[in-house]
């Protein structure tokens, strides 16, 4: 709502040359602006419309230009890869494995962390075996970090980690399949799924 309110301010001042330098000019502009605003109020009764001066509009434009992310459509999902599997997290025997295109990780024990890179914007879900991994499920600790790989101030990718106690979730001598599935937010026919088989010692 805030962004829209500001945009309306910019549009009205930009289109109609609203200027507060002289009182008479303001009055003249107000006469021209009022019908447009009344029209907008009628069409969109839920909107809050605020007039801004040219100086304020310039400041708002600058703020919008410097604001961080999500200007324009979200980049489509283009790639997902399982980056690393770490076992015995937080101990002196912590080992990390770069996964690449492998289908099976090293045999794990203790707390395990899985890192997944998601390039583009997707709606993602993850599972360990048949169990869905969610923020609400306290057996799993989920983290997410943002990546801007071309320094244009737009988030290009998300790095996800999930941490869990493998001694509780995977029986000794067996394996569990971890699955990360993401569907592109703006190209919903585009779904990418990656899996890794995780054996327990």
């Amino acid at each position: 709502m805030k962004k829209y309110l500001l945009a309306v301010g910019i549009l009205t001042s930009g289109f109609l040359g609203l200027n507060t330098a002289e009182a008479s000019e303001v009055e003249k502009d107000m006469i021209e602006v009022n019908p447009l605003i009344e029209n907008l109020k009628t069409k969109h009764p839920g909107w809050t419309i605020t007039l801004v001066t040219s100086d304020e509009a310039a400041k708002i434009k600058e703020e919008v230009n410097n604001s961080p992310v999500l200007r324009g459509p979200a980049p489509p999902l283009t790639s997902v890869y399982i980056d690393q599997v770490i076992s015995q997290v937080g101990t002196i025997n912590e080992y990390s494995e770069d996964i690449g295109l492998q289908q099976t990780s090293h045999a794990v024990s203790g707390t395990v962390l899985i890192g997944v890179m998601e390039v583009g914007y997707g709606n993602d879900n993850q599972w360990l075996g048949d169990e869905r991994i969610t923020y609400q499920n306290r057996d799993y600790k989920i983290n997410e970090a943002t990546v801007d790989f071309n320094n244009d101030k737009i988030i290009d990718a998300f790095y996800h980690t999930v941490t869990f106690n493998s001694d509780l979730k995977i029986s000794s001598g067996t394996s569990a399949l971890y699955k990360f599935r993401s569907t592109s937010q703006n190209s919903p026919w585009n779904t990418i799924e990656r899996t890794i088989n995780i054996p327990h010692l």
Partner: protein
Amino acid sequence: MVSMEDMSIKLAILRGAYGYKGFTEQVGENMYKVDTKAFKETIENAKEPIDQSKVSKLSSDQIKVLQGAPSGSWLIPLLNRMGQLGMMDLREGLVNPKIFQYTSTMNAYNRSI
């Protein structure tokens, strides 16, 4: 006081998302031993920069991008601390070069189907 497990998660994200290579020792083709304890002690106790040439801090643009996810609340102070100690040159950007390898592979794959 941050637990060892939480510090491990942070170090894992620094490696995976931003390509940080510190406090790991390669022990196999794709295997690395991680010394989270030493990383934690350095972050919490170091008084002097480890590498003066890498002393740096996050730009306002980098901060805004990091704030795009909840982890930004701890990544921003952690990365600034690492920049203060010269553990990571934040001016070089925050991206794991590995991402380009997989993006180009996936683009080629998508074009071929």
